[in-house]
């Protein structure tokens, strides 16, 4: 087994544990490269079937191509897709002008919380990775959230030998992170090997490309001429910039992501 085979096998094992353990399970699909890899892994784990719904928390500020791509893939893969918008917050005028962290909290964190409450999810599968950012590097594969989706990161349970946290009080839910152990280059190498369909925004146009996708007002492009996956991988091998450098909300505060994630952000 090569390196990608090992990553894939571990992720599939985690997905199958989640499916076995949680009656109400859903997978967050943000349309980006990571959660699209996750979607593909789910297809593999369940031999072409997708035995749980996929959830997109739509802030209505997404880059338009992302939405086009979402609807196309959902149809092609025959996904049971839940698109949720925090209408209340939008009606009340929430947007990036209210402060980026406030906007993230309302449109993404609270939006997600509404979905969890509405569908009574016990398990939520997310495509976060340890190498993205500090608080994610401390995550467990099965990570408990209380009824308000809060994360008690100072008191995480032991997690050893793939015996994951599957016992918890009713009302809480578990965030399942099947690709926590992958890095950015792994993701690209796997997309290439498996020929996974991806939104064009990641590939350079006029000397610029997106390295990480989010909402249009808070996501910047990087200078790049990479138009193939091989070129992207080559570029990443030599970059000194962090992956989420283009995500404006991260830069708001030294502990911005920790604070967002404590409240239930992805």
């Amino acid at each position, binding site marked *: 087994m090569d390196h990608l085979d090992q990553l894939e096998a571990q992720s599939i094992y985690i997905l199958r544990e989640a499916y076995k353990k949680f009656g109400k399970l859903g997978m967050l699909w943000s349309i980006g490269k990571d959660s699209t890899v996750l979607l593909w892994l789910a297809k593999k784990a369940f031999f072409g079937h997708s*035995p749980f719904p996929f959830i997109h928390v739509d802030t209505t500020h997404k880059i338009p191509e992302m939405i086009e791509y979402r609807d196309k893939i959902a149809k092609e893969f025959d996904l049971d897709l839940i698109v949720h918008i925090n209408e209340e917050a939008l009606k009340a005028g929430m947007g990036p002008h209210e402060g980026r962290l406030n906007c993230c909290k309302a449109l993404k964190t609270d939006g997600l919380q509404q979905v969890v409450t509405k569908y009574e999810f016990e398990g939520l599968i997310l495509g976060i990775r340890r190498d993205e950012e*500090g608080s994610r590097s401390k995550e467990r594969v099965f990570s408990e959230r209380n009824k308000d989706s809060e994360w008690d990161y100072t008191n995480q349970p*032991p997690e050893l030998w793939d015996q994951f946290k599957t016992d918890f009080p009713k009302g809480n839910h578990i965030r399942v992170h099947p690709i926590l152990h992958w890095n950015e280059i792994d993701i690209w190498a796997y997309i290439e090997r498996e020929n996974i369909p991806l939104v064009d925004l990641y590939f350079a146009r006029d000397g610029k490309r997106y390295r990480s996708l989010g909402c249009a007002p808070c996501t910047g492009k990087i200078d790049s001429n990479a138009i193939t996956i091989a070129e992207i991988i080559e570029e990443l091998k030599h970059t000194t910039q962090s992956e989420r450098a283009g995500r404006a909300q991260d830069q708001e505060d030294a502990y911005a992501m920790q604070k967002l994630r404590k409240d239930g952000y992805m």
Partner: protein
Amino acid sequence: MSIHREKLKIVVVGHVDHGKSTVIGRLLYDTKSVAEGKIERVKKVCKEKGKPFEYAYLLDAFEEEQKQGITIDTTQLQFFTKKRDYVIIDAPGHKEFLKNMISGAANAEAALLIIDAKEGVQEQSKRHGYILSLLGIQKIYVIVNKMDLIDYSEERFTTIKQEMNEFLNSLHVYPLKYIPISAFYGENLTSKSDYMPWYKEEPILEAIDLIEKDKGLEDKPLRFPIQDVYKFDHRRIIAGRIESGTIHVGDEILISPSNKKTKVKSIEYYQEKDKTDFAVAGKSVGITVEDEFFNKRGAFISHCENRPIVDHVFRANLFWMGKNVLVKDKKYKLKISTQEVECEILVINKVIDATNLIISEDASEVRTNDVADVTIKTKEDISFDEFKHNQNTGRFVLVEGYDVCGGGIISKLEKGIEAVSKFVGEEVDFKVQAFDEYYFVLDENTVKRSVRYKEVFSLGDAVPTVGESYEYPPSIDFIDLEQSRVAEIRKSILNKVIRLKDYIFEAQQIFDSNGFYVNVTTKDDYINWQKDYERVINGDLLEVDYANKWLDFEKYRKISYRSTLNKTLDYMI
């Protein structure tokens, strides 16, 4: 840098403040494995606090960690050398966060144990060393850090080396190297230090490239624990991960504990390109088999000639991380591979203080952060291997309430003792505890039940109808309603072991499997007794009322006096 390259997972452990996070931060920094953005952020945080650059902040991402200057939770980061990729796992050194240290270390293949040159070997240096040995991590480098504080003294380095080596060797851990460094000044990290010319070997970065990865899981006997069974379409797919060995289409396989045999019909796939007729250890697969009998999660698939152990009593070394103490006679959940089963601690053989190796032989509990040698009994038979033969199928966790509270490795199948003796008939077995003794122990002022060593009685064997604290009539029937079994004893010889449904009541005296006389003399009694038992099962009658009505302890039993207990025996209260 990770395509088709080898990857090694290394955990960094050691006492609090001995510089684990700094060593890692520095390694990441010097190998340019951290993005500039991250370094900029740390610079900004340090500047705000008026501190020099803290390499540890590259790992200690939590605000609480940076403010208090300690690592709270384990972190995994990646970096690479020319040779291969590394996942480097930072583990907290503070005793309070031992469970996080174990979470980190349990995932590692090799370890760096950091010791502060000035402080020398401390409590957690030893405890962590012990836990590494328990986790089966044999590839260890001891890193003596902060050499700058002792003027790069070879003498002091040698003293620490001797002290730690003596301790680790007594645990059968033999570190591959001892490396003197100063993480803060970068001495002996990526290149040889000019301050320590007496150290002739490699700096850390070169040394870790020399660690050889364990190989050969695929050459071990096949172990394929069933994770789930899918019936999404016409296929009935058995899904799971191969923990060791290799499976081929056409292989004859055995399913434990049901002992059924069948053949592998196919290995399933999502896309045509993944079609294969074999799969090796580590792979998550789905197979179909020729005979579609009922298979469920937890069962083990192996080849017929090399099967796992199937039993329910074993000896284990465990570390306890629970908030409550671990005690005997309490139900815990045991999770081993994909099996989950209720269990109890039958015997606490030893509790070991991991920092000084002092052993308590007569401990009645295992406290938080203690290590113990215990005998565990599971409610049902489980499939497993001894840890030394197969790491993946020889380790387990214990769950109390909602939390994983302990982890352990199986040292051996316990053949010598067992709480339960057995009558073995032609078709069925009957578990029996009727030959236990009851003593009033004068020294302890309590009544104790002494468990008889496991004995197996076959048809025609003599049965000990007379013991120190009981005297049964020579011809009686043992009946256990829970097991639905009957054993006929005639003239103190085991005559028959049958299913309850095949039994005809003929006014023979009846005892239950504990050896308590059952107040049944007529056919009507016999029927009413079973009806009451059903009511207990259905929750319509209290067990205590049932016992007081039907069971008679004193009729053929008594409690003998004993002054003390012989410690080589095992006792349950």
